[in-house]
C-alpha cells in the first residue's frame, strides 16, 4: 500500500480538528494562539500535498506565503497578549471583559 494524497489530506484534517478543539475549549490566550498555529499547519500540509501530487510547485509557493503570514500573526498576537497582560494581569480571556481601560 503506497501513500496517496488521501493520507496527507486525512492527516491535515486530523490536525485541523485538534487545533479547532483546542481553540474552542481553551480560554488561555497562549494556548488559543498555539491552536491557531496548528490549524495553519494543517492547511500547509494540504497545500504541499496537493502541490506534490499534482506535479507543480504553486502550492509550495503558497505555503511559503502562509508561513510568513502565520509568523506575522503570531508576533502581533503575542504582542497584543503582552499588552493585555500588562493591563489585566491575566491571559484568561473569560476574565477580560472590557475593551476600554
Amino acid at each position, binding site marked *: *500500500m*503506497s*501513500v*496517496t*494524497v*488521501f*493520507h496527507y*489530506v486525512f*492527516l491535515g*484534517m486530523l*490536525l*485541523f*480538528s*485538534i*487545533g*479547532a*478543539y*483546542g481553540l*474552542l475549549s481553551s*480560554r488561555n*490566550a*497562549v*494556548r488559543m494562539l*498555539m*491552536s491557531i*498555529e*496548528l490549524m495553519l*499547519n494543517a492547511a500547509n*500540509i494540504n497545500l504541499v*500535498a496537493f*502541490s*506534490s*501530487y499534482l*506535479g507543480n*510547485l504553486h502550492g*509550495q*509557493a503558497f505555503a*511559503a*506565503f502562509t*508561513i*510568513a*503570514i*502565520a*509568523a*506575522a*500573526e*503570531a508576533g*502581533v498576537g*503575542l*504582542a*497584543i*497578549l*503582552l499588552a493585555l*497582560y*500588562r493591563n489585566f*494581569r*491575566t*491571559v484568561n480571556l*473569560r*476574565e477580560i471583559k472590557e475593551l476600554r481601560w
Partner: protein
Amino acid sequence: MIDSLVFLVISAVVIAGAVVVVMAERIFHAVLGLALALLGVAAVFVTLGAEFLAVIQVLVYAGGVVVLFLFATMLTKSDLQLRRPRGDELAPVSAVVFAIVALFYVASSGFAELGERGSVVGTVKNVGELIYDLNIYVLPFELVGLLLLAAMVGAIFLARKEVVK
C-alpha cells in the same frame, strides 16, 4: 512499504504533539508539544519533496515562533488559569462533527484519482524560479515583505511599555 511506515511514524509524532498542545496541564509543556508537532510537519514536507519549505518550517516555526511562545509563556503568568470554565462541553462535539463532515467530503471527492506522487522537488532553486521568473508571484512576495515589516512595527508598538510623562 517503507514509505507507508515512515508516513505513519511521522503522522503519529505530529498528532501526539498536537494532542499535547491541546491537553497539557501546563502551558510550558504545551509549547514543547507545539515544537514537536511543527518539527513533525517539517518531516511531512520532506516526505513530499518540499525541501525548501521543510527548511523554512524549521527556521521560522521551530526556531522563531516557538521561542516567541516561550517568551509569552514566561512573561505572563499563564499557568495560573488552569481551570476549565463552564460552558465548553460543546467544543469536542463541534470538533468531532467537523472531522466527520470533512472526512465524508474527502472520501467522496476524487482525490484518489491523482495517483502517485509527482517527481517534482521543491528545492530552493525551483521555488525561487517559480516566484521570480513567472511574474504572478513577484508582487505578492514583495507585499508579504511589507506585511512582515508592518507586523514588526505593530508588535513593537503594542508590546513596549507606556512612557508616563
